[in-house]
């Protein structure tokens, strides 16, 4: 389905400086039983966020009112493991539009791009600067510009560029998805398929 356009976002950020955050933590398998894309934000980081009796774990960052915003800042190798797009849905449904990390797992990155969450990969040094800025002031804001492909720490003005391929960038700026593109080249696909042995 087509999704929201993304251009520029200015927001405070939520820090989660843990490495290798896997998609089982982002959304545990027992919450994958829905048949519609609804309500996954409620179970984002379920087992880090809630005790087994459903009460909140006070020390988890999503339960700390000091931190909020539309940017989630994770540690290295964010989104490893299962291909479940539900993890990206949960991140989106909770209200995040950008995930920042020094390294993303491939499938999670693709899933984010396919639903309109922007994965912003920065250097380990810049990630550290972002985390320090949040530590110094939880209300610190950051500007993520997709046209410019930059993320800026507003307080210090420090900025770093990030990569995204030209095609995906255009899709996100316009809110197009891959199926729109593929349906437009259906004749070419049909011709290719007619020649396949399998």
């Amino acid at each position, binding site marked *: *389905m087509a999704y929201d356009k993304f251009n520029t976002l200015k927001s405070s950020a939520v820090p989660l*400086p*843990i*490495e*290798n955050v*896997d998609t*089982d*933590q982002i959304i*545990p*398998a*027992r919450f*994958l*039983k*829905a*048949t*519609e*894309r609804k309500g996954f934000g409620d179970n984002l980081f379920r*087992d880090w966020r809630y005790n*087994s009796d459903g009460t909140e774990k006070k020390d988890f960052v999503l339960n700390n009112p000091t931190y909020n915003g539309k940017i989630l800042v994770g*540690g*290295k*190798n964010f989104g*490893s*493991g*299962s*291909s*479940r*797009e*539900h993890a*990206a849905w949960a991140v989106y449904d909770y209200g995040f539009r950008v995930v920042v990390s020094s*390294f*993303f*797992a*491939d*499938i999670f990155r*693709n*899933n984010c791009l*396919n*639903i309109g969450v922007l994965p912003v990969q920065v250097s380990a040094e810049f990630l550290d600067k972002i985390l320090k800025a949040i530590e110094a002031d939880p209300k610190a804001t950051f500007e993520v510009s997709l046209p410019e492909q930059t993320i800026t720490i507003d307080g210090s003005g420090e900025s770093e560029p990030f990569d995204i*391929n*030209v*095609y*995906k960038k255009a899709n996100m700026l316009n809110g197009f*998805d*891959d*199926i729109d*593109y*593929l*349906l437009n*080249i*259906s004749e*070419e*696909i049909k011709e*290719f*398929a007619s020649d*396949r*042995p*399998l």
Partner: protein
Amino acid sequence: MNTKKTLFDKVWDSHVVQHIENGPDVLFIDRHLVHEVTSPVAFLGLKSRGIKVLHPEKTFATADHNTPTINQHLPVADPLSANQLRMLEENSNEFGISYWGLGHEKNGIVHVVGPEYGITQPGATIVCGDSHTSTHGAFGAIAFGIGTSEVEMVLATQCIMQTKPKSMRINVEGSLGRGVTPKDVALYIISQLTTSGATGYFVEYAGQVFRDMTMEGRMTVCNLSIEMGARGGMIAPDEKTFEYVKGREFTPAGAAWDKAMAYWETLPTEEGAEFDKEITFNAADIEPMITYGTNPGMGIGISNGIPQADAVEGGVATYKKSLQYMNFSEGDSMMGKPIDFVFLGSCTNGRIEDFRLFTSLVKGRSKAPNVTAWLVPGSHQVEKAIKDEGLLAILNEAGFELREPGCSACLAMNDDKVPAGKYAVSTSNRNFEGRQGPGSRTLLASPLVAAAAAVTGKVTDPRELMELETA
């Protein structure tokens, strides 16, 4: 410029419908495998766009993630699971896809039944909304896991948009020692590369160890490619591959077989072809492996101690958090640690060869009284072979029972959940926090290590229990 091509290049390049400059390739998909968990929203998308499945004959659906592993003849008790299974059946019927649901003789784990029925073939592109789709690379196919938006994409257009990954060749030379299985080879490689060491790459496994390996073993290795971050892993097709594929239901026959063979034989990487990265390991360095932490890269040879935090790559805080979850300490020996559950199964180790290995070690011994063991075949075909080969009788004699096929405790979407705080020696693929049930603690290992744990009730080196003549 080097004109020699790799196996990966040959298969990828021959499936590119269109190349977008500075963007992804439009890649044609030969086989699309579908299961109940990652497909419902994709089918909803098709309905809202008012489009059909473009190639239902290239699409195969099975139920596995959610299914119970006992009393499969009864209605599924969990209403949410039952609903998801019903949705897949209805969607398959509506869109004309073959559906192997619960109770169907061909039902089983998607990555086990694909090869069993010849859906998996060399030189093919295969996708599924499941990261362990990499399994099918054992046949020299490009196979990788995708998200639900991409499932919808493939249902609608039989194509996917992907940027071509970089290539990596991992060679393991020499011969494996006694008690060292394909699972140990994979866990060893992951422990060396870390859980993100191959992110951005597609891997080819080469060298003596993989040439010597059975197709089942190759599937185990390729299955675990994703656990070092690789999108997929593949092994050049050879006589073993062709022998395995021949005569299966969806395999080409007659003149079509000859034509397919002529193509498949051209696939292996050419001498002199270059990879973006190449690594070589020595088989003699690999011993039976076990994991001690909360990602598959946290594995060690079973006779070693848990590494000190400052000796591992990555952040100390994350490492300590992981050990705290496991309730282990730096420097601990894994041997002798008491365990509570043993799980034999999954798309990693749920094939007949895995049950043969497990049975060979428990034969003439008894299940430890403190252990709950779940033995879950990957498919009905595996289940039948276990019975036909006489393995079931041996397992029963040793106090083990066999359950019905499915993904089961690998991801604990059904009732096969390890309770909080309990330890499971598991032949599956992930030891993430809570993977086998909230609060569960998973030790990944081979079927032999699982068998040794099952009869001793603690982490045990299987070589201590193996007879010398089985070397």
